[in-house]
């Protein structure tokens, strides 16, 4: 079986190179590009399994690259990589079709697992509403569900507390319980699951 090629789009050369080395050590072939336009120019001709796209880049942001890429190569699954987690941005990326988003620095296992999932997903098509995750959402109390809905549209705790008329401390407790009941180990995981459960974050 031929090695799968992973595309890396990141403006930081040292990071790009190191990521390529990591991917190669894990049995992938890697091709890296220093910018969105450079990759978009090449992407029609190249064969690949997945794109790792840095969010914050000069000239063209990861989100802009994603928009163009969807039209040119709808088959390519996208994983967004970000230097600092910005939930609304991540949700937007996920809603516009990114498979996942990962924060730097990351553990190789997390990245490889995410790539694996992306590749599998692109083969089997987009997953429908996940019944298992749906049942987890159904186990949330009404208040926890409200907190979840606000979390996945990227509201910070303080705003959630304000909108629900509860204290920030109570919000934190609800939030922790939501994470626990959903079995989420990170906010990105939680957002992914919420999308998989068919929760459509409205205002973006």
């Amino acid at each position, binding site marked *: 079986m031929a090695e799968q090629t992973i595309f890396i789009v990141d403006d930081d050369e040292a*990071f790009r190179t*190191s990521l390529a080395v990591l991917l190669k*050590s*894990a049995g992938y072939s890697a091709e890296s590009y220093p910018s969105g336009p450079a990759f978009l120019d090449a992407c029609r001709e190249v064969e690949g399994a997945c794109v790792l796209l840095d969010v914050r880049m000069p000239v063209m942001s990861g989100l802009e690259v994603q928009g163009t890429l969807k039209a040119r190569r709808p088959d390519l699954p996208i994983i967004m990589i970000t*230097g600092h987690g910005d939930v609304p941005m991540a949700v937007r990326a996920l809603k516009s079709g990114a498979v996942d988003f990962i924060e*730097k620095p*990351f553990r190789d296992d997390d990245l490889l697992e995410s790539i694996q999932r992306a590749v599998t997903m692109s083969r089997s098509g987009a997953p429908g509403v996940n019944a298992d995750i749906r049942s987890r959402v159904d186990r949330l109390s009404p208040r926890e569900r409200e907190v979840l809905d606000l979390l996945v549209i990227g509201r910070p705790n303080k705003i959630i507390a304000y909108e629900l008329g509860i204290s*920030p401390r109570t919000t934190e407790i609800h939030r922790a319980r939501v994470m626990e009941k959903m079995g989420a180990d990170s906010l990105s995981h939680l957002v992914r699951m919420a999308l998989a459960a068919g929760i459509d974050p409205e205002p973006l």
Partner: protein
Amino acid sequence: MSEHPHISSDAYDTLLDTIGALVIFLDTEGRVARFNAACERLTGYREAEILGRVVWDFLVPAEEAESFRSVFADLNAGILPSEHQNFWITKAGDRRLIAWSNTISRNADGGVDFVIGTGMDLTDKIRSEASLRDSEAILKSTFDTSPNAIVTIKPDGSIISFNPSAERMFGYSEKELIGQNVKVLMPAPYHDKHDGYLARYLDTDEKRIIGIGREVTGRKKDGEEFPVDLAVGEAVTANDRIFTGFMHDLTDRKRVEESARDSDRRLRELQSEFTHVSRLSVMGEMATSLAHEINQPLATIMNYLQACNRMLESQFGDETLEIRDFMTKASDQAFRAGQIIKRLRDFAARGETERLSDDINEVIQEASTIALTGAAAAGVDVEFDLAENLPEVLIDRIQIQQVLVNFIRNSLDAIQAAGSGRLLIASEIGNTGDVVVSVCDDGPGIADDIADKLFLPFNTSKADGLGIGLSVCQSIIESHNGRIWATANDGAGVTFFFSVPVTPGREAAHG
């Protein structure tokens, strides 16, 4: 013949010139027949120069001559007794008012020989009475129209007078209060102590308020208490003392002062909040850009380490187990660094704080637990001196702990530099009523060159310090309306202090 010795007419003459009263003899025509020494002194005329002159021609003022002559006529007619007042014009031209008591001496035939007037000069008495009346009128007008409340009392405290301003100020009428003890105008505890104050003063003459004045609290008829400026004067009369209290209602002035103080305080709060928030936002910005800049190399380091790990495993298998274990540990640490930066950014971005009423001693104990964990506290003898029954304070627990941890860590560093030493962490009520927390060490103390810049950012004596710790502490304490300071100990080392205000309404909790 009387059995009494005869008194010669010379003796009478001498007597007339010796007595202080004015004595004048007039013949039936009104001519001066005798003018005693007192008359001479008063008028400036010698008897010799005026004998035989008609009295209303020169001594009695023209406008009174008519009435004088009618009195004189009555006397000549033997109508007695006769008393009247009239003016005399002295040789120098002064007017003197004289009260006369008149009689007549009759001759052997029973006819009138002389009219004799005995007079008292009333001028000085009238003048002093008039001036007394004047000053009384002035006093009365002052008393009635003074904007200050004026109350006079006897030494036993009973009220003698209570002016209209006092009536308006206290809501009592003068009538209600005359004879009442002045303590009705005072709230407890002065109400019960005032008699004692008076007694002590009368006993010792030690002036505590007389001539000094101070701000006291008055009590109106309806029970309302209000601030007054009180000045007390004392008048010693022939047989008693009178105390006069002058009072000025300070309610409005207080209100103005308080509202000025309030807006001043609010302004300062806003300023320090602003400084804090702006420092935090500077920190937030620093943290965000740091996070981005540092995350790139950290991620790169992790990538290489993890790649090497995998390559070693696939090429050399189990032989490299130990090396790979170390590489995993190295990469874990890079990951940890990333987490720390993430938390720093989250913290700095948080900005807003949550204030709750809290027990400072609990906060101190928690913070000490955090700060004293680990090797830093080795060889350090830690003591606590926490005051009991402290009132609760209104604080953001996390932030105050941040300050405490900073203080304690600084002290531990100082002590470690000296090898070993003592650390004393204390809490107490300060003299402003705030709760004061101190951390005292016996380390090497503060270097002179940074002593006055302790709380400014980017000043540090530590080889590896960034110098923002105490600056952040200051911004935290200031945003709590507290104070932060440091003093050099008498012996070795430094004591760092901060104070935070007591939760409003909890002040009384302190015994």
